[in-house]
């Protein structure tokens, strides 16, 4: 088994409380399903959509491109899967696709010992 990180990018946050509530339930159901099959290492956390960007040798601090960027990372989950193909299959159940978002699937680098 290998570890992968799902980075949730973009996707509209609920327009109305009712929609947001539905989305929450869908996410809960999806993550629960993954957990029951033993794929979840860490459910992860949602991230604020704004923050600071510290950059360069001068360590300049800016507000970062977050606010405008449509593909800002909104959260992450650490999952376990056989290989990248299975990880991709698992990601397809994510409700984020209903709201124009994307899931970035990234293998956690490991040293082949």
């Amino acid at each position, binding site marked *: 088994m290998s570890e992968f990180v799902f980075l949730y990018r973009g996707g509209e946050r609920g327009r*109305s409380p009712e929609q947001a509530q539905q*989305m929450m339930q869908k*996410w*809960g159901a999806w993550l629960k399903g993954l957990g029951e099959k033993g794929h979840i290492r860490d459910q992860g*956390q949602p991230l604020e959509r704004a923050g600071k960007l510290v950059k360069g040798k001068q360590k300049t601090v800016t507000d970062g491109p977050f606010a405008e960027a449509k593909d800002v990372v909104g959260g992450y989950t650490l999952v376990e899967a056989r290989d990248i193909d299975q990880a991709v299959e698992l990601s397809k159940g994510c409700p984020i696709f209903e709201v124009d978002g994307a899931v970035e699937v990234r293998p956690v680098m490991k040293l082949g010992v």
Partner: protein
Amino acid sequence: MTAVLTRIFGVHNLALVEDVVQDAFLRALEVWKFRGIPENPSAWLMAAAKNRAVDLLRRERTARTYAPELGRLLESEWTLVPTVQELFSPHSIKDDELRMMFSCCHARLAEEAQIVLILHILCGFSVDEIAGAFVSSHAAIEKRLTRAKKVLAGSKRLFEIANSDDFAARLPTVQRALYLLFNEGYHGASAESSVRAELCQEAIRLTTILMTHPLGATPATHALAALMHLHAARLPGRLDASGNLSSLFEQDRSKWDAKLAEEGQRLLNLSATGTELSEYHIEAGIAAVHDSAKSAQDTNWAAIVSMYDMLMKIRPSPVVALNRAVAVGELEGPKRGLEELHAIADAERLADYPFYPAALGEMELRSGQREVARGHFRAALALARNPMEREFFERRLEACQVGKAGKARAR
């Protein structure tokens, strides 16, 4: 939550308050998406709203003026957090809800607008839920709400519940609004029984808050609370095993909630002080007679008719007259019931009310006039407001055919 925040930000900042509430809610959902719903979501939401309120007050301290009576306490960093903490404590929340209740019953608002406002601000119903409860469109309710909120925001200050003269002057309006809120749940047109039960529960909750305030705990308020409990006790019997509407005459009375009925009776006893005899006293009295009867035949109809007579004196209405006529029919037979039904003044105001032709139908059916009865039930069917009522009248129509007269009667 809106009630507390409105106390902090002032009623003229109602839109800002609603943003804070919505924001707290959306943020909570975002976290719950990953971590699951916590054990006590409402406490969690309250905490989130409190933090957000403090943030906003810090950031915009100079930009706006908030609740005038709290202004100075909110300006200084020394008092800001303790003040907000205090406002979010349970007893303070109750007072805020009371303030908001009275503020919503603004004299410039029609009764229906007051109820919509209470449902939205104090009970947290969404526009769609309210539209569902009133069988109205989203757009119509939204329009009514926007207008009502403008009036509320224009009043600048929340209603001051410490002023006993103002309190006493507005109390009847508040009682009336709570009564109508309960009625909407109990007799309303919405087909969703869950929606209706929720309306009844909210009405009872708000009336209970009113009862805990020394100025609010009048005999009429106790009578109002009694009436709600006594009616609510019968709610579980209103649907039969297959989910069909069941009339008072055919209900399985063992399903009635004895605890609620007992509490209602206790409240009714509490209300029996002073000289004021409100319509709530009488309606609670009628409900108490029904609750204590083992069957429809066993009911003390004479007592019910005389109480309807009293009710007609203090608050006459065609619906009261209709119920009185049905009771007369029970007491003195269908012929007398029919006479009373035909004698109702303002009967044209019942033109859209399906239970008027249904009552006529029942009386005719019991006098053996099956064909006439069928006509009335057909008229009732055409006026039915939801599938449950439709189904109910269809069964009555069938009863006319097979001649099972007198077994089940409408109301």
